[in-house]
């Protein structure tokens, strides 16, 4: 892994396997780490009570980032941060036209009522995943506030949703594809195999 993109990164969808063909790497693993640290500080700056923060990563791309952000928040504040993972497949509004992704697990073991929930995802695009996540979260109580942290904001929103904490703003064309994980951020295209 590391900085190399010699191999194609696969993001399988149930209908057809799309291969991600990377064109160029935009952030290295170090850049991603620096951005996460900055986001961690911004989160602490905005939320004074770390005890009331719950970090929720969206399956599957947001989980790695959420774990790292929770760890960074722990390093900054010294308090243990509640962590959860959420799979929004059952809440999507495009279940019928979009292939339902393979079901990943949801694990939120605490009531979110009166907590500040930081939703973490890898790439913010149309905003539909976040909308689904907002609906889903309401089933775990009534959070005091929900804030959104994403590694990459690539534009093209279809909902009035904006992120609170952004790793990198990245203007893209609609047909481009972005892959973001702890090893870096790549831009390229999706090709059906």
């Amino acid at each position: 892994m590391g900085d190399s993109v010699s191999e194609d990164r696969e993001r399988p969808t149930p209908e057809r396997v799309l291969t991600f063909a990377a064109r160029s790497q935009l952030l290295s693993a170090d850049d991603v780490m620096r951005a996460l640290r900055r986001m961690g500080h911004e989160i602490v700056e905005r939320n004074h009570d770390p005890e009331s923060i719950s970090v929720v990563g969206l399956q599957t791309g947001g989980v790695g980032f959420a774990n790292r952000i929770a760890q960074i928040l722990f390093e900054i504040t010294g308090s243990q941060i509640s962590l959860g993972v959420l799979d929004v497949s059952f809440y999507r509004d495009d279940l019928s036209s979009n292939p339902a992704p393979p079901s990943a697990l949801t694990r939120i073991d605490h009531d979110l009522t009166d907590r500040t929930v930081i939703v973490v995802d890898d790439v913010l695009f149309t905003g539909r995943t976040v909308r689904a996540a907002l609906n889903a979260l309401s089933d775990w109580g009534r959070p005091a506030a929900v804030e959104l942290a994403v590694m990459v904001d690539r534009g093209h929103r279809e909902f009035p949703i904006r992120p609170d904490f952004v790793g990198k703003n990245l203007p893209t064309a609609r047909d481009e594809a972005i892959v973001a994980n702890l090893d870096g951020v790549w831009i390229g295209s999706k090709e059906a195999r």
Partner: protein
Amino acid sequence: MIDSIRGCSLLTLNDMSCAAITEVLDTAESFVEVNRRAIKKVPALKGRVVASLFFEESTRTRLSFEAAAKRLSADVLSLAVASSSMKKGESLRDTIATIEALGIDAVVMRHKSSGAAAQVEGFVPNVRVINAGDGQHQHPTQGLLDAFTVRQVLAERLGVIGSETGSSLFEGLNVLIVGDIRHSRVARSDVAAYVALGASVRVAAPGTLLPVDIDAWPVSVVEDFDEAIEWADVVGLLRLQHERGTGSFVPSLGEFTFTHGLTWERARRLKSGALIMHPGPMNRGVEVDSRVADLDAAIINRQVENGVPIRMAVLYLCIVGAAKGEVQ
């Protein structure tokens, strides 16, 4: 071989590949989590309509199908057959046509005649038909939930989640199915599920309660239940079905219990860690000793509990997949 039930009717587990069954079990795993939430409902099937047609009595299956549909936010129409126009002599075909005209997405159906669900599927090509038991033929969701329960319990012992294991826990697993194989749709679905997942399956029954086509089944027949009991990792018991005339196939219930009941003495000879299953409703004292049914090894309540997530998974895959298929 069917590799996925997405967008399809679910009539039988025969011809299902390991991948198709594993997909249902993995999806059910997500729904187990939904059933543990304070708000046990997701909007996945909002605006879809599921009709439940039970032409034969049922407690568990009907309740869990309806609970499953409601937890997916589908609307449920349930036809009380006894007070429907079928009592006036309306045919099955006309009843189904009425239901189709109401614009439903899926029918969950139980009927006393084998093949009834397949016949209904032929009447209404645009409606997904989910077989909830047809005569002596199949009871697919029971087979799926039995396999799911076994996987869940074995995975728990390893400290992992079932979906992380795929079908690996079934390799080398010895499943013994005992009792009224002849009349049992559960046995047929169980055998199909376990065999597809890679378990080795044996059946034990008095000769009169073996089906005539048993040679064509992918199982071996055990003459002596007592011999096989030490071989089994899972013992699947079946209900003696009085309503299908089982009584006349055995000399007496006492003799059946003596040769093929899971008595206390037999249960003590089970491997340690072996699982005891029963699809319910149990005839305590006939196919299973009442004390045995209450052992920790008897995971009968787990089976009932898993009825809802498995049926949520089946409804979800059959119905949501449907629209996808049309788009493609």
